[in-house]
């Protein structure tokens, strides 16, 4: 496919009309909570865009993110974005293998130096020289430090690339870190989730293609349009939280009535993601709709944030035993202090010299 044609021209040859662009952009705009009128403008820009080169590197990961992205649906409107990009390197999807595959990566970097988008999936192990994850004899760190300086922007796909994810979970045996811990001089868009919502990934790419910029990011580097609201803010069970109606177990009356799952450990209030609005599996549902609390997978260190089944208001560590230790220690110290105070009292009483008239007259005692 020639790269100097616009997307509209390329796709028109395949019978994909501008109405499809409009429709795609309408759904993206809806997803990104943009005013519906933006869709028309976005469609114009997307139609006029050139194909964007993308290099996708997989590090310490489970390929769940790629599964989420590529197996999201049968060929559909969202896949239009795949026509808009030229995925120049992706180990799992690349047709060739071995030296050929490595050659393709080198070629992709050279051909689009400073222009391609680098998508990274997985965390990077640093311990023991990064030997815990290597590709073609090179460590992940080595590859990232080689490729990233040539990219226009980096999209960290999934919680591992964005925050270290499960590989980084306590005790972090491989010394895993996030992309942002290594790459400091490139714009990095974090698209966390375990896995991330596929349309969120495509939405970020669509934003880059149509606006030519990276979207507004929050303090954790996540696009605000998708991660601006908490699950709790957008949850259809929110009214039950406000009414104080909570399921106490997964099979009680409250659970059957669809009440709030806060007490069963739902992390919705502290989790920022678009699950409650975009939903999963082509809009079927999302975890809370299926009766299970949110795990908080798009937040840093979600794996170590206490039990998935402990309410957010409850402590993540053992406090009761520490309180008991505190009471015991307090009692011991208190009694000791009390005894000390008593002996001071006795001593004071013993050594106390009563005031005499002579004292008042200022005469020295004889």
């Amino acid at each position: 496919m020639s790269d100097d044609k616009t997307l509209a021209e390329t796709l028109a040859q395949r019978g994909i009309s501008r109405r499809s662009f409009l429709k795609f952009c309408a759904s993206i705009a809806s997803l990104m909570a943009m005013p519906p009128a933006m869709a028309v403008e976005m469609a114009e820009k997307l139609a006029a865009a050139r194909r964007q080169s993308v290099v996708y590197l997989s590090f310490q990961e489970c390929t769940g993110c790629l599964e989420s992205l590529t197996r999201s649906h049968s060929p559909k409107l969202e896949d239009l974005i795949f026509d808009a990009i030229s995925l120049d390197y992706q180990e799992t999807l690349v047709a060739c293998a071995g030296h050929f595959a490595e050659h393709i990566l080198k070629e992709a970097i050279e051909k689009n130096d400073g222009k391609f988008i680098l998508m990274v999936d997985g965390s990077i192990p640093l311990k023991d020289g990064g030997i815990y994850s290597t590709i073609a004899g090179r460590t992940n760190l080595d590859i990232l430090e080689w490729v990233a300086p040539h990219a226009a922007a980096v999209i960290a796909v999934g919680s591992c690339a964005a925050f270290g994810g499960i590989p980084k979970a306590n005790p972090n045996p491989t010394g895993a870190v996030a992309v942002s811990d290594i790459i400091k001089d490139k714009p990095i868009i974090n698209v966390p989730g375990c896995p991330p919502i596929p349309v969120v990934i495509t939405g970020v790419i669509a934003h880059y293609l149509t606006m030519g910029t990276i979207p507004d990011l929050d303090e954790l580097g996540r696009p605000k349009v998708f991660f601006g609201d908490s699950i709790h803010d957008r949850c259809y069970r929110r009214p039950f939280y406000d009414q104080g109606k909570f399921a106490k177990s997964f099979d009680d009356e409250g659970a059957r009535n669809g009440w709030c799952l806060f007490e069963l450990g739902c992390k919705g209030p502290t989790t920022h993601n678009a699950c409650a609005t975009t939903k999963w599996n082509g809009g079927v549902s999302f975890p809370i709709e299926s009766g299970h609390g949110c795990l908080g997978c798009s937040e840093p260190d979600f794996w170590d944030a206490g039990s998935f089944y402990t309410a957010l208001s409850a402590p993540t560590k053992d406090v009761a035993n520490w309180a008991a230790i505190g009471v015991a220690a307090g009692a011991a110290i208190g009694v000791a202090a009390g005894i000390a105070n008593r002996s001071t009292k006795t001593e004071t009483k013993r050594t106390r010299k009563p005031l005499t008239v002579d004292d008042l007259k200022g005469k020295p005692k004889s």
Partner: protein
Amino acid sequence: MNSLKGIPIIKLDATPVMSHGNALPLLHEIEVLLDQLIATGKSGAIDLRSLPMLADDYEKLKEILGEGEVKATVDAMGPSQVRETAIHGVWWVTHFNSDATVLAEFIEITYIPEILQTHPADARMGLENLRSRLMSTSQVDKGETDV
């Protein structure tokens, strides 16, 4: 509860969903947008998926807006339904994916929804297309007369 049989089967009455009362404010917004359309010619749209709508709100909205004269289907990578409601100038646009899931849903307040209009670039392509068809037809015609 170690086996599947240990999980009790409990039959529940389907309880009606309580309305949030989101339909009425939405209808008022439509009223404002329609007024604006008439006054300034500026189209407006409301993204139905951006609002926490329950089934009752949805039905209420459908009931009040009603069914109009125009029903169109656009087939662009999955169907899109474009229907004018009984309130002229208020359109209900639903975009479906190729597996019939709803991608986006809008109430558009406009004289004609954007997706029904032909894009100028598409019209140019149509013209080229038509001309090439005419050309081949006239060539065929010529060929026939020659015989």
